[in-house]
């Protein structure tokens, strides 16, 4: 495949990742959150594989495989089984803004990401320059998910989306990150998800709720 086509494909994959983030932002069902996240992670792993093909780097191949197995399959299944099914979560009612409002805010944030990291201000060394503002938009939208959703499970998904945005930025901006650091980041992510899963189920057990808005005993 020619370099131009690869760059174009990478841009398209980045756009797909952004659209899946918007889909998650516009949904109200816990099942969908997880499904969109899983799909997004799989698209991300394809994007990483594309960069690996281009740079012919074994550690990126390993990263693509890890992303597919852990983010695309492992984390979604664990979240589904241990939180959504066991706690019988269906509709997310604890959203502080309406869906349309959060979509509009999301659009504004995406525009902001484009202005803040204009591809032309970051010359040289880029695999696909238009992926950088897209990845920043995904980071901002993940943060938005965490802010407007008050349910702890939804906040967890928001953080995972944000992390995907960081990875998208990482492979396009700095494809040759030291492998030991990449592996460490991945390990942290897995450990973090495990601890968060335990915390959420502990909270659900104690309070019979997973809504962070009802966590207010510590207010003083």
């Amino acid at each position, binding site marked *: 495949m020619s370099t131009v086509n690869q760059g174009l494909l990478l841009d398209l994959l980045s756009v797909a990742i952004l659209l899946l983030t918007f889909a998650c932002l516009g949904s109200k069902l816990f099942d969908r959150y997880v499904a969109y996240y899983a799909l997004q992670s799989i698209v991300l792993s394809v994007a990483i594989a594309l960069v690996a093909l281009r740079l012919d780097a074994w550690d990126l191949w390993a990263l693509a495989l890890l992303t597919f197995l852990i983010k695309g399959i492992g984390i979604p299944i664990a979240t589904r089984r241990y939180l959504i099914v066991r706690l019988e979560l269906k509709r997310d009612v604890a959203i502080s803004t309406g869906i349309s409002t959060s979509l509009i805010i999301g659009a504004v944030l995406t525009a902001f990401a484009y202005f803040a990291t204009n591809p032309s201000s970051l010359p040289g060394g880029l695999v696909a320059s238009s992926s950088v503002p897209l990845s920043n938009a995904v*980071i901002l939208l993940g943060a938005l998910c965490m802010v407007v959703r008050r349910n702890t499970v939804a906040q967890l998904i928001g953080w995972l989306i944000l992390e995907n945005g960081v990875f998208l930025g990482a492979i396009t901006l700095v494809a040759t990150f030291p492998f*030991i650091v990449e592996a460490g980041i991945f390990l942290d992510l897995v450990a*973090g998800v495990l601890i968060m899963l335990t915390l959420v189920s502990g909270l659900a057990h104690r309070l019979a709720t997973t809504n962070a808005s009802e966590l207010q005993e510590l207010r003083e």
Partner: protein
Amino acid sequence: MTLTLVILVCCLPLAGALASILGAQARGIGIATAAGGAGALAAAIALVAHILSHGTYQAAVGFVYVDPLSSFFVVTVAIVVALAGLGSISYLCAEEAHRGLSRVQVRLYGIFFGFFAALMLASLETGNLGLVWVLVEASTLASAVLVAIEGRATSLEAAWKYIIISSFGVTIALVGTLFLYYSASVLDIVPDQRLTWPILFANAASLQPASVKFALLLAIIGYGTKVGLAPMHTWLPDAHAEAPSPASAMLSAALLNTGMYAIIRFQALTGPQLGRYGSVVLLVFGFASIAIGALFMVRRRNFKRLFAYSSVEHMGIIAVGLGFGGVLGVYGALLHTLNHAIGKCTLFLASGEVVLRYRTTLVSEVGGILGRAPVIGTVMLLGSLAILGSPPFGLFLSEFTIVRAGFVRQASLGFLLLALLALAFIGCAHTVAAMVLGKPRNETPPAAASLRSVGAVPLVIGLAALLLLGLWIPGDLNTLILKSIEAIR
């Protein structure tokens, strides 16, 4: 030789974790934790001596890197680990006797306490900023388990808030690290070295300017969340109040410092490109933190929250010291880091002893500690005076240095700092005096039988060290701080 010391420093704290995995009792886990901490401190002091005489140590393409600045932070954190390890003995024994913690919880405490300490110390011994990020985030995760360990609804809530806000913040710092890596792509070095601090520092003037600025801002906001700089401090009071007291001591006196260490490293890289830009950002966040900390210290009802807000204030003071800059400002900031670490560690351990006796963290239910437990009452009173910056304790000296640096930079900022410090003094002293000196209000007899006098040991050591640092700064410490400043200029 040096490598052995480096490894010892970050592996010895795992002794407590090992004892837990092997199935020791609470007492055994406590003693192993304390011994591991003491061993780490001894190794850290030997490491400092070695660095002072032989200069910076570097191995494995900068993945292991110890210069005077990192050895200064290593020894500060090791002191806290040693004191909090000692404090763990009485905490674990009392909680086991009182049935506050199950056997599994005691073991989890031992394991995660050990890993928390080891990861923090390791994060200070690497020169690769990506690895720094990995280790800082890992230590956040380990400490979140400690916050939740008592299993109450409130502690789970605090742990959730802590982990979600901190992970979010630290992820921002990761984006900053990515931009820093990108900014180094203009340099003619192998990709693996683009996050190696000494190499970046040597080439700081030729990094790509736009992304260096991004990197600095994102790092200050991201690691600032860890440090507890306002307005990113909201997780801090909850986590500090809900964690077991030795863990609160570690959070406040050690973890916050590792975040500040990362910020110092980033700021040092941006000097040649951005000039005083980083200092101004630090001044803004620093003054905001002092103001928020001081205001929220007024009329606090929970004494552990009171000390937590005091940590926000002190991190602000350190940031302001770094922001004022110059040898004087940075000297004050580093000295203040050490003093605050010892002081706040002592205070949290003392409040842990109070909690074990009164079974409450509410100021209104504690009164007249001095009559019931003279040693703890004295430490609480003198420790609070010390942390508020009264002479003759160490914090007076370091705050004074920072204020002086402020007057050198701009007199109005110096006055502002003084006014905020006075406000903090009034807010905090009022509450602590009522607790220590007031009439005893709790009629139930304290469960003194299960308490051991070993709990007083770290308190007395900490207070003595604070007093010593107020009266006399050892020559080697002075050299170490001056060399640390040199390393980042």
